């Protein structure tokens, strides 16, 4: 499983790309990642309600590559579900993750 997080918008500045591949993790950490993903229930996220934009809020794209399948989700800071926020924080804390500037 590979997760890719793109963060843009915000107050401006670089668009960043954070990637974590379970192949880079120990079996225990790979299992922990799978549990985080399950908890986030990415396949059943409801469509965010239409809402007024918040200037300079971060915009997120989360892409999950699993087997031959790909799931793409997009959120703003205001609509990002807490479970997915926790997943992102977990990924950000992993030394095995890579971070770069996203290509435009």
């Amino acid at each position: 499983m590979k997760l890719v997080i793109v963060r843009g918008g915000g107050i401006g500045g670089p668009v960043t790309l954070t990637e974590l591949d379970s192949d880079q993790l120990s079996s225990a950490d790979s299992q922990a990642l799978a549990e985080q993903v399950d908890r986030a229930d990415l396949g059943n996220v409801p469509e965010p309600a239409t809402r007024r934009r918040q200037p300079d809020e971060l915009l997120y794209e989360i892409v999950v590559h699993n087997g031959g399948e790909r799931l793409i989700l997009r959120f703003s800071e205001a609509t990002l579900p807490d479970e997915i926020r926790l997943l992102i924080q977990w990924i950000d804390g992993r030394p095995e993750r890579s971070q770069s500037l996203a290509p435009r």
Partner: protein
Amino acid sequence: MYQSGWVCCQIAPPDLLARLAAEGDAAQREAAIQTLAASASLRTQRGLLGRLRREVGVGAAEIAGLAGLEPSSSRQTVYDNQHNGRSFLPGVRARGDDDAPVQDAAVNDAFDATWATYDFYHAIFERDSLDAAGMELVSTVHYGVDFDNAFWNGAQMVYGDGSGRVFQVGGLTRSIDVVAHELTHGVTDFTAGLVYSKQSGALNEHMSDVFGSLVKQHSAGQTADKADWLIGADTLVPALGRALRSMSEPGTAYSGDRQPGHMDDYVDLPDDNDPRNDNGGVHINSGIPNRGVLPPGCQPGRLRLGEGGTYLVPGADRATSTGHGVHRGR
């Protein structure tokens, strides 16, 4: 996790309550207003009261009167989110109007920069806070975990610490122009109401950059010719760049900066929720009007904005100014 004190709709976040007050049927509107009025955290929702006044014509006194509460007389309050994120806004009260500086540098930085912004708008434009009616300025620091951003959520300012990988830790609250930039989004909300998308969004961003820089200059006692015209200088980690934007030299602030400086180079991006496309390029195309603030031969102490009016800046002779105020756009 939600703040205690709301007597009904206790799981309803403030933003939802504001939408119900603005867009709901009569029963929903009354319930939402009653809930906001009865909240023990009414002071912290004062920013919402400004929105309610603008969107539904309900004043702060009317709302406070519904629950027998005294309207807040605070000018500003800084809160600590304690890294709990969106559901814990504004957080724990950290510093108010008459409080001495605290141990937390982020709290003090946000407090001081907010005061500087308030003072600028009041001294130069005779504007009493963001809504011109003494609205309490609410800031939250330590939002989220290693959060690389600052934003205006429609009711208050929110500042992350920065991760040290993109933004320097503490960098966002240390930057007076970043703080003034965010507060100016509030001013725009209460005035021109520029839609945060594509060209109007770029103008919205431009206004925040202009007044962010002016507040920095006013605070430093600078004239225009001495200013660096950088937004968010020294907020990014050095390896990424020197600033978030350069108003005088769009496209030179950081690695990958693609801001144009002329309409001929307008970057036409879709507004499609793709984070790469920045709501249709609002932070990208703001470089065009930003560059227009500084034409060649700009007189020290005075700005001219393209074909529009002039902005008054410190050092200018107010008696000879051709005018001042908030730029109006579509």
